[in-house]
């Protein structure tokens, strides 16, 4: 009965019917509760899967950039490598040094992992496949994802290790700076959509993605978003916080075993989130490629399920981010801040004004 | 300047300097610890000698005495000289540092101190450089014995 409603093109009926079935079978409260637990479990599994697959993909992609094969030993083409890694990490001893602040040290692992996990709830994966469609969705994502920096600062400070401390300080200065550019570049699109709700942002792109419709300012905003969000997630070439050739491993020097795994996982979930937000705001999320009123073309594109569109776009953005990471040298911390304050921020503010002119004059499509 | 001119010049400054007659690879000047630094300073700053590059500083243990050997060259004039300072006192060998003339001497002198026990006076930071701080003895001396670490084949 439930499966009847299943459609790969629109998940809302399917999810509604599960909900109705639960509520009908049990009492409304319990049914609702079971529904919540189901959703939570799904996200837990998704997060784990995401981490495992992204680590594998990154290792493979980076290997190909470097003329290597990457992991090949565990499973066919090394596919089970990350599973082997995680098993190893679980079995490893979790050390806490004597001088560290043990409460904060443990708390950091929670904070750093929870922020991206909560943000995942607001990501629309496909039509009707979104846990939490708030009317301030974009704002929610921006604000919650910046909680992660607290985790980094906590980790660096509580370790009582100079390398960790420097790493944490660096990443603190870096993340708060780049936060601005991320927000402003996303706001340029909000001017056009007039809404912060992600489902509406996606719906507004049903006749074309903003990157195409939004004229030049949208492209500039996208470039700034990509640079700034890479920096915000501490990825290369902005990985000063864990620059292994300078400060060994930065803020997570002292973490070992499963706690280290969470730092790692959080990094990759963050990586997914910035790509997903970029894809949603600039490339229409799960919305297939539509060109105005070209009905035939639009229908052809609709044939590809939204979930594939979404993950396809995310994958392309991720590929570019990996390409950056595995090509460029790392910036220095002061250069990084110079880049933000002297280049990205002024440009993004001017770009925002440009966009409002475009919106006023109706130069967009 | 050729070797003869340098020789003449050195003898004019310090008649005590001993310059062996047989022609080796370089011009050798053997001095006592007292005149090492004044001579080195002259060689370094005199316009005609201008030995501004100390390319090697080594210690030698001649059993009867210790010796520190300075290989000097001039980057613009191209001539070379070897200064040797003979230190008769094996118990408490002392010689002035040449750190102030050639900064590279700082590390090299520490090495000589570490391995031969020659103390360089006025050295800014005379500590052992290669061995641990609590190492006993000076391993490059010929009379050094260490049953634990030296294996005779």
């Amino acid at each position, binding site marked *: 009965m439930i499966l009847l409603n299943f459609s790969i093109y629109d998940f809302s009926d399917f999810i509604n019917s599960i909900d109705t079935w639960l509520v009908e079978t049990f009492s409304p409260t319990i049914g609702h509760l079971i529904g919540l637990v189901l959703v939570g479990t799904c996200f837990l599994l998704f997060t784990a899967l995401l981490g495992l697959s992204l680590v594998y993909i990154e290792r493979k992609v980076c290997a190909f950039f470097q003329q290597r094969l990457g992991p090949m030993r565990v499973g066919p083409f090394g596919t089970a490598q990350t599973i082997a890694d995680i098993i190893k990490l679980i079995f490893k001893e979790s050390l806490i040094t004597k001088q560290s602040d043990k409460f904060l040290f443990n708390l950091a692992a929670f904070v750093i992992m929870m922020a991206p996990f909560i943000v995942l709830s607001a990501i629309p994966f496909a039509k009707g496949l979104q846990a939490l469609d708030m009317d301030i969705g974009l704002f929610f994502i921006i604000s919650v994802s910046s909680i992660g920096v607290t985790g980094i600062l906590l980790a660096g400070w509580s370790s009582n290790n100079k390398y960790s401390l420097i790493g944490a300080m660096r990443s603190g200065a870096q993340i708060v700076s780049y936060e601005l550019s991320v927000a402003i570049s996303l706001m340029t699109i909000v001017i056009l959509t007039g809404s912060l709700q992600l489902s509406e942002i996606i719906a507004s792109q049903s006749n074309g993605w903003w990157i195409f419709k939004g004229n030049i300012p949208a492209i500039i905003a996208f470039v700034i978003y990509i640079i700034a969000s890479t920096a915000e997630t501490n990825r290369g070439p902005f990985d000063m916080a864990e620059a292994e*050739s300078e400060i060994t491993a930065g803020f997570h020097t002292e973490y070992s075993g499963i706690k280290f795994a969470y730092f790692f996982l959080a990094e990759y979930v963050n990586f997914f989130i910035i790509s997903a937000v970029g894809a949603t705001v600039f490339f229409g999320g799960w919305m297939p490629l539509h060109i105005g009123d070209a009905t035939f073309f639009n229908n052809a594109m609709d044939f590809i399920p939204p979930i594939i569109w979404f993950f396809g776009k995310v994958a392309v953005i991720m590929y570019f981010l990996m390409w950056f990471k595995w090509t*460029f*040298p*790392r910036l220095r911390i002061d250069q990084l801040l110079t880049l933000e304050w002297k280049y990205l921020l002024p440009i993004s503010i001017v770009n925002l004004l440009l966009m409002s002119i475009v919106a006023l004059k109706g130069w967009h499509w | 300047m050729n070797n003869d001119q340098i020789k003449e010049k050195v003898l004019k400054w310090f008649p005590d300097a001993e310059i062996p007659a047989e022609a*080796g690879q370089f011009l050798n000047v053997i001095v006592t610890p007292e005149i090492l630094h004044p001579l080195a300073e002259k060689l370094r700053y005199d316009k005609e000698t201008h030995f501004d590059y100390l390319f*090697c500083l080594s210690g030698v243990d001649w059993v009867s005495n210790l010796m520190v050997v300075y290989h000097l060259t001039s980057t613009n004039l191209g001539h070379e000289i070897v200064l040797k300072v003979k230190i008769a006192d094996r118990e408490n060998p002392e010689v002035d540092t040449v750190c102030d003339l050639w*900064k*590279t001497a*700082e590390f090299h002198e520490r090495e000589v101190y570490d391995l031969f026990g020659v103390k360089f006076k006025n050295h800014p930071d005379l500590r052992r450089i290669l*061995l641990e701080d609590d190492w006993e003895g000076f391993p490059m001396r010929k009379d050094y014995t260490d049953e634990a670490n030296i294996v005779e084949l």
Partner: protein
Amino acid sequence: MSTEQTVLGNETQEYFINMGPQHPSTHGVLRLLLTLDGEIIRKVEPHMGYIHRSIEKMCEKDSYQQIVHLTDRMDYLSCHINNEAVCLTVEMGLQLEIPERVKVIRTIISELTRLASHQLWWGVMGMDLGAITGFLYGFRDRELITDIFEETCGARLTMNYNVPGGLMFDIHPNFQKRTKEFLAYFKKKLPEYEELLTGNVIFEERTKGIGYISKEDVISYGVTGPSGRGSGFACDIRKLHPYSAYDRVEFKEILYNEGDSYARYMVRMDEMKESMHIIDQLIDNIPEGDYKAKTKAVIKLPAGEYYQRVETARGELGVYIISDNKKSPYRVKFRSPGFSNLSALDTMAKGCKIADLVAMMSTLDLVIPDIDR
């Protein structure tokens, strides 16, 4: 108007941090004690000796043939040149006439060694600055050189191909073919290096004007090799005191006057081209003849002192042998380039940031066993 202001807690504390012995970018077990103010370096104090193996002491017990293989373990990236230095010193003492063929082969392999060393350095430089991909490209090309070495000398790293009087055995029949193949290949790959790092804006920002050292300081500290030539110190022993076949080849001594990390980087990049140019001139003109001059089974150097300077990939290596006419030398001293180069680090690094220190150390191209000996 004078108001007394008491600003509490406005002073930042200087603190110490140990960089090394177990640190990714010290390239070995070197320990730098940094005094920091925030991220600004106030003082760098190198502590070394973690892999001191007393090679000089061991030399006093070994025969002259046996000394050679110990020098492989000093600067392992220019092992052939180290071997050559010892052999040249012994040959000088014996006043041995070595065959032309030996000289040319030694020169070719020396230059290949220099190329291999610079390739590795380039890769490591990229890695230290965060461009890990460069590391693998550098190694990819270096592998081809080590293959050539392995085919001819029998080992990839510690080759021990020189013996006093000549070479251990003749070159492999494939040697010339392989070397020419490699040169043709690497001439295509070197521009890639330039595109990946040299022109890159981040790389330029990270190296230009960083780690400045003046020509006077360079001479005073005895910083030689590419690091010295980046400050305009003409210290190339191949030009000053030509040995082996360097007197008959045409090549430029690369000099840059900027004295910063970028200049030191550019010296090495240009040196790779010069090395290829030298090999180009020699590879087809290896004279026929013996691969070894006749020496006695037990070599005894006439009493006296012998000093030989050669140019390794890192700078000037001096071998100082004092002989008392026995089968082992009385005293051997290796004036290793890394030892002197390291001493200039403090002067370079003052006022820079930690990240700059890493870039600086890469451009000094330190090999720790070379420093500790």
